[in-house]
Structures are given as C-alpha cells and as structure tokens.
C-alpha cells in the first residue's frame, strides 16, 4: 500500500520547542521521530510540544514510540505536551494513560501557554 512518508520538523518558539508530526506514526516513523526529538532536546528548552494536527494514523507501535519519547523527556526533567489529537486518539491517550503524563491541548497556543 502506498503511504505518505512520515516527517517530523522541529521549530523553536519562545516558550518551547515544537515538533510538527506529519503522516502516520508506526514502525516506519521511528528514525525520523527520534531524530527530531534529539534535535528538540538539543535546544535545552524546558517544554517540548508534539503537534499531531497532521497525523492521520497512530498504531500500537506508534504509541510505543511516544512512550519512548516520554521516558526520555522525564529522564531529562523536560515537560512533554501535545496538541492537535483527534477525538479518537485523545481517547487512546486516555486509555493508555499517556494523558496522565502529558498535557493535551486543543491548539498550539494552548500548548505553549504556561
């Protein structure tokens, strides 16, 4: 099946660094996701925000990748926030309890507001 290649782009804002995620988060996304996280980590910003607005599909492997990022962030005493999740994936973040460890916001402004 032809699928869009996953991409992750890092951009800095005054109150945090944002990783814009595009495509599907599955096993194919691992390298790009970890590279982007490492780039965000290198900025030394306290808040790292994952933008899911352009993510159309997350499978269980993708959830595991997000868990991996969360573990890294907690180790480094960083705060991981997310926005742009669809209702369905918001539910999955609640079921998996990811929502207990990452604040979920409607939009970028909400995620960057302290």
């Amino acid at each position, binding site marked *: 099946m032809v*699928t869009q290649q996953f991409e992750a782009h890092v951009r800095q804002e005054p109150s945090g660094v944002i990783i814009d995620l595009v495509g599907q988060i599955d096993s194919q996304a691992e390298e790009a996701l970890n590279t982007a996280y490492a780039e965000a980590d290198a900025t030394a910003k306290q808040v790292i925000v994952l933008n899911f607005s352009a993510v159309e599909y997350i499978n269980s492997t993708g959830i595991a990748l997000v868990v991996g990022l969360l*573990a890294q962030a907690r180790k480094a005493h960083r705060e991981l926030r997310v926005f742009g999740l669809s*209702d369905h994936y918001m539910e999955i973040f609640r*079921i998996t309890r990811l929502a207990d460890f990452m604040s979920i916001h409607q939009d970028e402004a909400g995620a960057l507001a302290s």
Partner: protein
Amino acid sequence: MSVETRTFWQRLTGQGRVRSESAKPDAQDRPMITLRPPVEIAPDDPLVAYFLSNPGSVEVNRLNMDSPALRALKEEGVQMAVPLVSQGELIGLLSLGPRLSEQEYSTDDRRLLDNLAAQAAPALRVAQLARQQQAAAAERERIEQELRVARVIQQTLLPKQVPDIPAWRLEAFWQPARAVGGDFYDFIALPDGRLCIIVADVTDKGIPAALVMASARSVLRSAAEGYPSPGQILARANDLLCPDMPPKMFVTCLCVVLDAHTGHCLVANAGHNLPILRNAGGAVELRATGMPLGLMPGMVYEEVEADIAPGERLVLYSDGIVEAHSPQREMFGFGRLQELVGAHHGGALIEHLLADLAGFTGPEWEQEDDVTFLLIKRLGTKNKKSQLADRPDARIIAAFQVDSAPGNERMAMLRIAESLVELNLETRAVDRIKTAVAEATMNAMEHGNQYDPDKPVQIEAAVIGDKLVVHITDEGNNGPAITNVTPDLDLKLAGQQTARGWGLFLIQNMVDELNIIDGEHEHTLELVIHLQGGSDGNTAV
C-alpha cells in the same frame, strides 16, 4: 645524401603483412621523392626469415630466392632494403631506390641507414602498439555500446509491474547475463478476463536477440488478442514470425492462459522448459510439447490443462538457471530445480532458488545466460471454510484478504471502514472498530504469519443480530501474540516493561468482546461490537 631521390617506406599491417607506401613527387627543382604502392610481405615469405637472420641493410638485386615480396621489391625498383626488426619481429622495411647520383650506396650510407633503422624500429613498434591498443579499445567500446543498446531494448519491453490479481500473487524475476540473452516475459489481459502469461527465450545474444524479442513480443500480443487458447496463440505467432525470422534464430516460448476465478489454466509450449506445478502431490512438470517459434510455419501446439488450488503455485523459468555451471562444470539441471520447488514450503521461493543457485555456482560465477522466473501463486488455504457464514442469521458485509506485509493493516482498516458505511455508525464507533481491526491484523501478520508473503490474513465481518462480528484469521502455527501482561505505563516509563505491547490492550478497549478461536492450522481473533446501546458508544444512528 642521395637516398632522398626515391624513398619507399614499408611497414607491417596489423594482420602481419608488410606493406610499403611512398610520398608524392616534390617540386621540380628539389630532389624527387616518390611514394610507391605498398608491397605486401606475407608472414611465411622467405624474405621475412632472411631479414630476421640478417639484420642490416641489404642490396635487393643481390638477393636470390623464391620470394613474391622480393620480386615485388625488384619490380618497384628498390635497390636497398633495411629491415626494421623489433623484439625478434620484422615490423617494417626501409626500402630505397637508386641514388640520384647513380652511384652505388657507400659503406657510410649503409652504416647511416643501419643506425637509422636501429632507432626507427622501436619507435615504429611503439606507434604500432599504441594504434593496436586504440583499435582494441574502440572495439571494446563498440561491443559495450551494443550491449547497452540490447539491454535497454530488452528492459523497455519487459512489463513494468506484475498484474495485481485478488487472491493471487504473481512475481517476476529477471537477471540479464552480461552478454544480454534473449529472455523475456509478458502478461496479456485477454478479452474474456483471463490472463495470458508468456515466458520466452530468443536464441542468440545482444542486439540480434533483442530485436527478435521485440518482434516476438508484438506478435504474441497480437495473436493473444484474436485467439482464446494458448495453443492457438502460439500457432498464430509462429506463422507470423516464420517469414521474417533471421537464419539460425528461433524463439522458445511457454504460454499459460489462467482463469484467476477458478484457478484453471491451459498451457502450450513451443520448445521451452516445462513449467513446474507445486501442488499437494509435490512438484510436477506440465508436459506440453511443440516446436520453437519461427522455425517452420503450420505448426500445431498441444495444450495441457491444470488446476491451481489455493496454496499452490506454478513456476515458469528460462534455461539460465538449469544450464548454470558449478566451478566443477556440473550443470544445475532440471531435476535439482524440480526438487527445490517441491521441497520448499512457505514464501520467498524465488529468493530460495537464487540462494541455492548462488551456492551451486560459487562466488566467481560469470552468469552465462539470462535468468528468468515467473511465480504464479494462488493465495489462501485450501478448503478454508468461513466460520461466520455458517452462523445462523449472519449477514456477511466484508470478506477479503490482505498480504502479510508491514503497513498492510491500514489496507484492512480502510476496507473494513468501507463495509461499515451501510451500518450508519457514529464516527467514534467507526474509529474504534478501525483501530481494533488494524491492531488485530498487525498481530496476525506479525505473530501469526510472521510476515510470510505467502500467508495472507483473512478478514470477515458479519452482522449477527444486534452485533457486528469481525474475524481476523492468520495461517501461522504461532497464533496471535496473546499476553496476560497488561501494559503498565508507570513500569514502561521506569524501564521495567517494554515500551511495546499495546496491541491487544488497545483491541480489548475498542470492542465489547474479544475471543480467540484456535484452529488446527489457523488462529482467529473474533471482535464483537454491540451495535445497539453498546457500552462504548457503538450506537447506530
């Protein structure tokens, strides 16, 4: 010096014959220089042996032997000849006419000529070698260019992709020999919906083979449009090819017409290798015979028929593999190929055959001929019964397969979503079912089928009463990865549990019931969703 009056320059040609050339007469008041036509000295002329054993200038008129070259030199008026010898080989001749003063050549003249010859010979030899190398390089480049053209012709004419037929998997492998053999294959959709599959081999190599291949391919395509059976297609193609076939060339060709709905196939053969059917009884050759195409018109091609059942496969191939040699010059052979096909279970048959071939030929093998394989595999498990169709009141809304390949769970997810449209479920309910089906399909592909491309995942959905029941069935011996370990995010974040292991947990949370049905050769995850008043909002509108 009077040698300027008339000068002849002789040299050996690349073919080992000695020739002389001359310059045109110069202006009237200057010493006249005449270039004469070349004098050929054959390698076996006794003059050659004489010059090799008597280096140094020699007066031609004093020589007396039965030599055509000597006669020619005398006829040309050559008086003095100085052999140019390099590394024991006569490579040319300085030949001079009478001095302008009409005096004899002096001892000094001859010494000077000998010195000149001693220096000119190696220089001439170097020049000759350089020219030979240039010619050889140009010839090599010409041959390489021809091979490139032949390869481009061949590649251009091969199908860009294999047909995508539901419940079938077709694979093609083609590896040209360096010299570019004449293998080709083709898939032609027949007007009645069946598929014509061709594999062929043109005798000869390089551009001639590529051109005949192009012609044969067109002729076979044209014949397939008008004739419904492989025997007729080959007979018609043979009649069309015969008038224009170059001498000593012909085309071996196997033609299979497949009905993908029933698995029935007809096979006709024009002198090609017999196809191998791998079925429950092992690997059997489908023995159809006939003359190669292009030899003589009016040929009749017998047809054999066979049925390819789910799980069975047909292997077509060219002689590049069976005629491959080991370092001990043993041939790979038909028997070995048939045994390999018969003994192999599961997917990746072509990779398996190529690995065996590589082991047989060794790493230094220079591929002698093109190697071509076509694999025609009918997917599915034989006599597989639908469990859902047998249930009373079941209304099947989806039944399909997806190949076990990473990412294909999305295909299953989208197909199931299409079938849910008629149920008018809320978006949230649809999203939950999609996630459950995607995760169950991933589980079946990865753990059940271990991503074996020959093992598809069967997906069925039915409405039974007020429930939607979805079956996701693999063909593996391992079964779905059922674990009792509930993923615990605290432990995962603390590194005490793997970050993975969410699949079954997600499925359980997306559906109302999850059942596991173990069969003898398959495992099924049964997802049950309550359509009316389901606890998780799967409410029909």
